């Protein structure tokens, strides 16, 4: 059994990518850096879908369709998030999340 023909390899890899992305979301303060980390998390989910598609699913087209769906949603999310970041910068002159506290009660 080759290492790249095992489901577990891909699952552990996606897990590592997810953990790295989660660390980025928790540790960084720049909004753009947080967006980058969210993209990593979405890619980890994508790898999981594709791995299950390759090794378990009854029909191999289904997982690929879902991976394409994730990509389109990620593109929409990135466009909206980036425009919000530009608007926040215009309002606060900063994209540090610790300065974006206007909604605090």
């Amino acid at each position, binding site marked *: 059994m*080759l290492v790249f023909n095992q489901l577990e390899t891909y699952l552990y890899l996606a897990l590592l990518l997810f953990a*790295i992305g989660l660390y980025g979301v928790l540790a960084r*303060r720049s909004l753009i850096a947080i967006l980058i980390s969210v993209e*990593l998390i979405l890619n980890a989910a994508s790898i999981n879908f*594709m791995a299950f598609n390759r090794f378990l699913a009854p029909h191999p087209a289904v997982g690929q369709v879902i991976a394409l769906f994730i990509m389109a949603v990620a593109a*929409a999310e990135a466009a909206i998030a980036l425009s919000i970041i*530009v608007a926040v910068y215009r309002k606060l002159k900063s994209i540090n999340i610790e300065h974006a506290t206007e909604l605090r009660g």
Partner: protein
Amino acid sequence: MNFPGFLSPQGIATIAFFVVVAVTLVGALIAVAARNIFHNVLGLAMSLIGVAGLFLYLNSPFVALMEILIYVGAICIAICFAIMLSEPLYLPRPPRKFTKILGAMAGSGLVFIFLLLLTKKTKWVPAAERSTDWSVTTIGHYLLTNYSLIFEVVSLLLLVAMLGAIVIARGGRGSS
């Protein structure tokens, strides 16, 4: 797991797989750990190219191509534009408190350990009957028959996202 000889086709494929894995993980580490935001974006692009390589190993060249086209070609470039439109890079940024970094590491580490144990414990059972039809033609068929609702919803979502992005971001850097 056994290791074939280095010069056999399987050996070369295994070495290439480890290179792809290294590109993915090193890129992801650069994307979260580097201080310069541009290095973060370049790390993200590197990691996504690695993920596209993984998709090639998972028998899906079409999705790998789309990954490079959409993520590296569109999203990373859009992030670069957002960086240029927002905070200038020469401003000093104080380093984050060490306790907070440690807290983030502990949080993601706990989730990692939980999911690792979950993955180890589960028995993955393949479907009883598995089709072997991996062609792009089939994906196209599915997108226009069984999954045409997904196709339409995605196009509507992208249209709404585009309009929303234009409305929110109109005005540029200096105006208020």
